């Protein structure tokens, strides 16, 4: 039991396991719930929490000044995510609940509804089956920081907070043209969104809150007074969307945000696979990632060469294939990688792999060895650029300097004349490698569902930034809609 001779390590497979099942976040959520509710019997409480099937339901607040279109967007989000829609109006419209009746009494006496009453109403609503099961969208509530804090104190907090923003003048103009169909409660606009049906047109009335400039101004003042305080409550997961755009554009932006997951504090060892045709910059990106994030740079070709040079048992077995310029058989390759990726530096620091897998079968074999990547990137680059990048390269045989006739042309004609091309860069060779990649690209993409595509036809550092952002942020959630 001498820890220096045989270090007591947590098995590396557990890291993969914990990540797969999101254990860190689960534990965090459980302890958070315990601390918020402080139940007398934590065991009973934890068991209840664990027996709930799914905690990963949407919890969204959509907010914004008057006439910013928050109700429209909320309803669109609700119908596409199939979540419950909650607004102050439909909470008050509840005839059964005693709290709603009490709140209405306050309204009739022209008094504001006290915060604790609001909290009670929302708490009761969120405990209903549809909210628990499918999630909820809260439209335009909480209105003040006080209400937001009160909600947080009882453990109600959103996972996403969306604010629709627009200049005041735009909002006032919008409000002035706002019309409501009293039968369907649909909202129309006299200039931007006029009903096509003449029956509806004849029914339109002005909204109950009035559309004069002064009343809108008053409500905008109220919004500006409280919005900063609200932002502070939700700053970690908020998103500001410009509301002065077409409805579909706003909705698309909101949806992209709702797909993103909040950053987690869970320990994260990046295990990256870079896939892409020859000349897409896999090597460059891998080197950049490895140096910035201290990852182990694993290249399948390099590994084979190392094994052969070391004259290891495995290297000897691979030697005949390498000498004939054939691909090493899958089972040997997977074994070689398994050996490399199981070493301590790879399991503790993470790795970035390139040049492998080339086929779906290889990808399957690799993940069945327990080396599952948590990020897969496809470097997309058109064939023309690949030819341009590779076939124009030349090497000065005298100085060993490398040139590229477009990006880094030789300075004199003399140097240009003695430049030689690597046989691997010949157009025919490149074409073969490209077609070898594209033959299997689709089936690998099929296997790696979480793969993310990067446009690699840009400056290397732009591509790197793009990859970085995808590496650091959690992979976006797949929302089961998008049809």
């Amino acid at each position: 039991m001498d820890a220096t001779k045989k270090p007591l390590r947590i098995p590396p497979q557990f890291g993969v396991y914990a990540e797969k099942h999101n254990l860190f976040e689960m534990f965090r959520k459980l302890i958070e719930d315990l601390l918020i509710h402080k139940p007398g019997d934590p065991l009973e409480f934890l068991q209840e929490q664990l027996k709930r099937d799914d905690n990963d339901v949407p919890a969204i607040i959509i907010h914004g000044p008057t006439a910013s279109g928050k109700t429209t967007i909320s309803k669109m989000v609700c119908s596409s995510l199939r979540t419950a829609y909650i607004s102050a109006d439909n909470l008050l419209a509840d005839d059964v609940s005693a709290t709603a009746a009490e709140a209405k009494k306050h309204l009739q006496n022209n008094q504001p509804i006290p915060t604790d009453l609001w909290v009670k109403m929302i708490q009761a609503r969120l405990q209903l089956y549809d909210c628990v099961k499918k999630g909820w969208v809260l439209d335009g509530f909480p209105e003040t920081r006080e209400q937001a804090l009160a909600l947080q104190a009882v453990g109600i907090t959103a996972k996403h907070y969306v604010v629709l923003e627009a200049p005041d003048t735009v909002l006032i103009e919008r409000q002035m043209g706002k019309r409501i169909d009293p039968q369907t409660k649909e909202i129309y606009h006299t200039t931007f969104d006029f009903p096509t049906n003449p029956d509806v047109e004849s029914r339109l009335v002005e909204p109950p809150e009035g559309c004069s400039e002064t009343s809108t101004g008053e409500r905008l003042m109220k919004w500006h007074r409280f919005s900063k305080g609200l932002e502070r409550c939700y700053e970690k997961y908020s998103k500001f969307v410009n509301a002065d755009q077409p409805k579909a554009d706003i909705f698309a932006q909101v949806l992209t945000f709702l797909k993103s997951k909040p950053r987690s504090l869970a320990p994260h060892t990046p295990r990256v696979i870079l896939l892409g045709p020859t000349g897409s910059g896999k090597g460059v990106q891998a080197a950049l990632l490895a140096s910035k994030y201290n990852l182990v740079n694993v290249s399948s070709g390099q590994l084979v060469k190392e094994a052969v040079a070391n004259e290891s048992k495995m290297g000897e077995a691979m030697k005949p294939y390498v000498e004939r310029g054939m691909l090493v058989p899958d089972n040997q390759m997977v074994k070689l990688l398994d050996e490399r990726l199981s070493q301590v530096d790879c399991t503790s620091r993470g790795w970035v792999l390139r040049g492998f897998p080339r086929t779906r079968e290889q990808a399957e074999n690799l993940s069945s060895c327990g080396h599952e990547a948590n990020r897969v990137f496809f470097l997309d680059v058109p064939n023309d650029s690949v030819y341009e990048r590779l076939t124009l390269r030349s090497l000065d045989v005298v100085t060993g300097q490398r040139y590229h006739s477009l990006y880094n042309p030789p300075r004199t004609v003399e140097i240009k004349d003695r430049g030689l091309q690597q046989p691997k860069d010949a157009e025919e060779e490149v074409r073969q490698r490209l077609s070898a990649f594209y033959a299997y690209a689709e089936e690998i993409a099929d296997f790696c569902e979480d793969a993310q595509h990067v446009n690699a036809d840009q400056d290397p550092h732009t591509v790197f930034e793009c990859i970085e952002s995808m590496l650091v942020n959690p992979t976006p959630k797949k929302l089961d809609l998008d049809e």
Partner: protein
Amino acid sequence: MDVPRASESKDYLQQHKIMELFDNLTAQLVFNRPDNPKEFMANYIQTLKESRTANMNFPCIFDETNIGSVFGMLDPTKKGFITFAQYKEAMVTMGCVGYDTSPPGAEQDCISQDTFTREVKDSLSRASATFQPQ
């Protein structure tokens, strides 16, 4: 630094031994790696609740044969005794809580298997009883 709510929360965690509970849960998960960790954890808490009522059979990853083999490792020549230093080290390694720091035989530097087994069992069940003492 210590706002009242923070210290209140810390007290709560300590009083109900929440952190110890989660440590044990993690140990169980590392060891078993079940396909459905949620269900597994719920079952673990169920057994813990039952043992709380019965005040025995606390869930623990070590059982009696494990304790026996640990002793066997420390006493490869089968003398039937281990030294006090070995005893202490074994207790720490197995994650025992509040074990007897002067067990019978400590002065002679030889601790018998019976003492060892009893101490480990007692302190392991103390470590597994992660709830507020009744």
